[in-house]
């Protein structure tokens, strides 16, 4: 096992733990959220860290990144690079409309006891049988789906890229993601497997946490239709996060399914 995969296992576990607020935060930050002109590009930072939005811990794996064009097709991440603390890639916005950039992490987790020691394993369901030793006791499986997104719009906004996949927690903007402004309320809908996720806690934290002494979390709860509103106290990049767990795993051995969603949204000054 390489040093990297050990670290990856650790962060994946940390993200999957029920107390998500204490875990590291995964994020995608685009260099601009509204672009225009004949040949627009943005560059995106993708990392996992405690402070928003400073890459100081781990990069996001590039093979987890999907860029959805306004027409629903997938676009290629250009000039992609993974460094020690962050991955970066460019998006060439060849179409007019809203692009969705997502990183989806997931997998199967197992905890068990073997040879008198507590052990943990993370991987794909297909590798499960050979990864867990035959003498393992108290084996417990869980599945996780963690989705991180951001949005970039070239010219007039569009909805084609915003269609939910219907898997795990997802966000449907009701107020357009291009129209978020300080002092104004914005409404969103949280979905779980494509259906409204009612009564879930949603937390928003503004970036630049390094330059203040408190997280200044904004906490809201989704209503019966999965909807929630946030009034942005000031302009900036915000990390909006929700997490939950249930027993609806698609993997039959997994009793628990852990789900999380985070979006990076830009709020502009008036």
């Amino acid at each position, binding site marked *: 096992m390489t040093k990297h995969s050990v670290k990856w296992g650790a962060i994946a576990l940390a993200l999957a733990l029920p107390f998500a607020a204490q875990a590291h935060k995964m994020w995608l930050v685009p260099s601009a959220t509204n672009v*225009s002109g004949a040949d627009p590009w943005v560059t995106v930072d993708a990392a996992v860290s405690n402070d928003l939005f400073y890459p100081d811990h781990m990069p996001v794996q590039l093979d987890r990144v999907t860029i959805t064009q306004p027409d629903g097709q997938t676009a290629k991440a250009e000039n992609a690079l993974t460094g020690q603390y962050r991955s970066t890639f460019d998006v060439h916005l060849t179409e007019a409309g809203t692009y969705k950039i997502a990183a989806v992490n997931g997998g199967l987790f197992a905890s068990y006891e073997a040879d008198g020691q507590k052990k943990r394993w993370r991987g794909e369901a297909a590798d499960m049988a050979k990864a867990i030793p035959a003498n393992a006791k108290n084996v417990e499986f869980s599945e996780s789906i963690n989705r991180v997104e951001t949005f970039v719009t070239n010219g007039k906004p569009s909805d084609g890229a915003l269609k939910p996949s219907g898997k795990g927690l997802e966000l449907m903007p009701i107020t357009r993601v291009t129209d978020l402004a300080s002092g104004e309320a914005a409404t969103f809908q949280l979905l779980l497997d494509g259906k409204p996720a009612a009564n879930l806690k949603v937390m928003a934290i503004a970036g630049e946490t390094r330059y203040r002494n408190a997280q200044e979390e904004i906490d809201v709860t989704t209503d019966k239709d999965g909807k929630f509103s946030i009034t942005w106290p000031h302009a900036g990049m915000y990390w909006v996060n929700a997490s939950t767990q249930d027993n609806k795993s698609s993997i039959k051995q997994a009793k628990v399914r852990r789900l999380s969603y985070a979006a990076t949204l830009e709020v502009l*000054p008036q």
Partner: protein
Amino acid sequence: MRRLSLTLPAILLAAPVAAADLNVTVQIPQLNVAEYHRPYTAVWVEREDHTVAAQLAVWYAQKESKEGAGTKWLPELRQWWRRGGRDLQMPVDGVSGATRPAGEQKLSFHQGKAPLTELAPGKYELVVEAAREVGGREVVRVPFTWPAASAQQLAGQGSTELGAVKLDLAP
């Protein structure tokens, strides 16, 4: 000949009544800065619900480039961009043009004539937004009621990127 001399003054008298005017003066301040670029500026009329009733002017860098000249930076006029700038395809005839130098920029618009078109009676705001490369951004709003019952001189005042914004309404 006699008929003509009668009708001409009649037309001259009638004209101002039929075509209500909206005259705007935007003062772009002289700034003592190391690196100065003329500001991108947008002038528009907003309804009470913040939708755009008329796009009056947008000034941006016209120099050709691979990135589409100054159109790359139009979203820097943030409020204009989200209120309707992004719905336009540049250039817009009679609306878009080159950036303007410091000084008073005078604009005249007539009811029923592009770009003002037919403004329905009601409450509006004239909005002027300026954003300058390596500089700041400012929005000045001047509320008004349309059409004006009598000639009116309204004004707003910027403090950094804009100076006085005057709005003269002729009934």
